[in-house]
């Protein structure tokens, strides 16, 4: 006869049912979606990043160049120009993280008005229509990519009022590159104003004490 106690160990009350025939070996990865519609926070205003501020580009194709900041674009990038005729930096978007903002500013009233109309769309890469392979093989000569006219016009529009007002020294300055040389310590160099902890009382003369009349 069957030992009821023995049977109790292996006999489950409920039947184990397989839900699916096929189970994947790894868990499926779900794409991350925000549960709450959290708004993208606007980028904090950088200290001294004012329209007309001269910035030093720290990285990228134009590293070391001194460049004029025009305005912040809604994408969070900075709109910036050389000006092109001075140092070869075109109207461009740049990440503010790679801009060393200096204290010197240039008056760009007229240019700022022009710049106000520009948006991220103007700077965005234009998607090329993909040609089939055969067409590429038969294409006669390499067609050089030309700058669209609207970009050239925009460059002159914005640069002209800036360059007109530039003094010779300032032109020289913008045309020059920022480099570190022997003896230059970047942690000791000042680009923005210096915060000095001076105790003014030690420089002021002691106040004359009035003698009390008895």
């Amino acid at each position: 006869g069957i030992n009821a106690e023995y049977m109790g160990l292996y006999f489950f009350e409920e039947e184990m049912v397989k839900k699916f025939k096929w189970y994947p070996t790894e868990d499926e990865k779900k794409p991350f979606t925000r549960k709450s519609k959290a708004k993208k926070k606007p980028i904090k205003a950088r200290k001294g990043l004012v329209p007309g501020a001269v910035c030093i580009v720290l990285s990228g194709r134009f590293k070391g160049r001194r460049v004029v900041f025009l305005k912040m674009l809604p994408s969070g990038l900075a709109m910036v120009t050389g000006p092109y005729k001075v140092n070869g930096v075109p109207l461009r978007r740049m990440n503010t993280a790679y801009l060393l903002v200096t204290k010197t500013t240039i008056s760009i009233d007229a240019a700022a008005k022009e710049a106000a109309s520009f948006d991220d769309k103007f700077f965005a890469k234009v998607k090329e229509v993909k040609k089939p392979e055969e067409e590429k093989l038969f294409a006669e000569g390499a067609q050089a990519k030309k700058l669209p006219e609207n970009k050239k016009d925009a460059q002159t529009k914005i640069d002209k009022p800036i360059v007109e007002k530039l003094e010779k020294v300032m032109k020289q300055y913008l045309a020059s590159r920022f480099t570190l040389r022997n003896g230059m310590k970047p942690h000791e160099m000042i680009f923005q104003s210096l915060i000095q902890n001076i105790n003014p009382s030690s420089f002021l003369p002691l106040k004359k004490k009035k003698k009390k009349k008895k």
Partner: protein
Amino acid sequence: INFSKGQMGFKRFVEAGRVAYINFGEDHGKICVIADVINNNRVLVDGPTLGVARQVISLRRIALTDFVVKVPKGAKTRTIQTAISEFGLIKKWGETKWGNKVATHAKRSKLNDFERFQVMVLKRQKSYLVNKEVAQASGKKVHKKKTVKKETKQLKPSAISSLTHTHTYQPVSYTHLTLPTSDLVQISVVAVSLKKK
């Protein structure tokens, strides 16, 4: 044995009233007056209108200057203040080479990027003119620089002085570069022609 201060060979002594320059610490770059001597390592120092609080300072952090202010030993801050103003210490310090150097170093350290660029341009212009004169004096041919135009916009001497020196720039004499003659040769940065008579 009697010996006077003058026989010792030292010229600057650690004494009450001696003006000292602080080399190290929070107050570095400032001058102060020695109020009292504690031992061979430390002094009591005070600088009422000089930006130095009354404090004990190590002699290792200090450099003695030529100035002595008449003040009794252990003088209080107010006594030192009147003595400093009577002596005209701040003005006298500003007229010394040492004081000037300190001031220009302080100015240079606070320069903006654009100001640093301007100083560099001025240095270049000055050195070009100086080297030209030296070359002419030594009889060497002067290389013609294509990039330097005669109408280069030079900043006014006042601007130059404000950026590089605290005192006005004076013409430099290069007598040591010429052969010993009875004539005095003086070259200023502005003057161009140099003729041996």
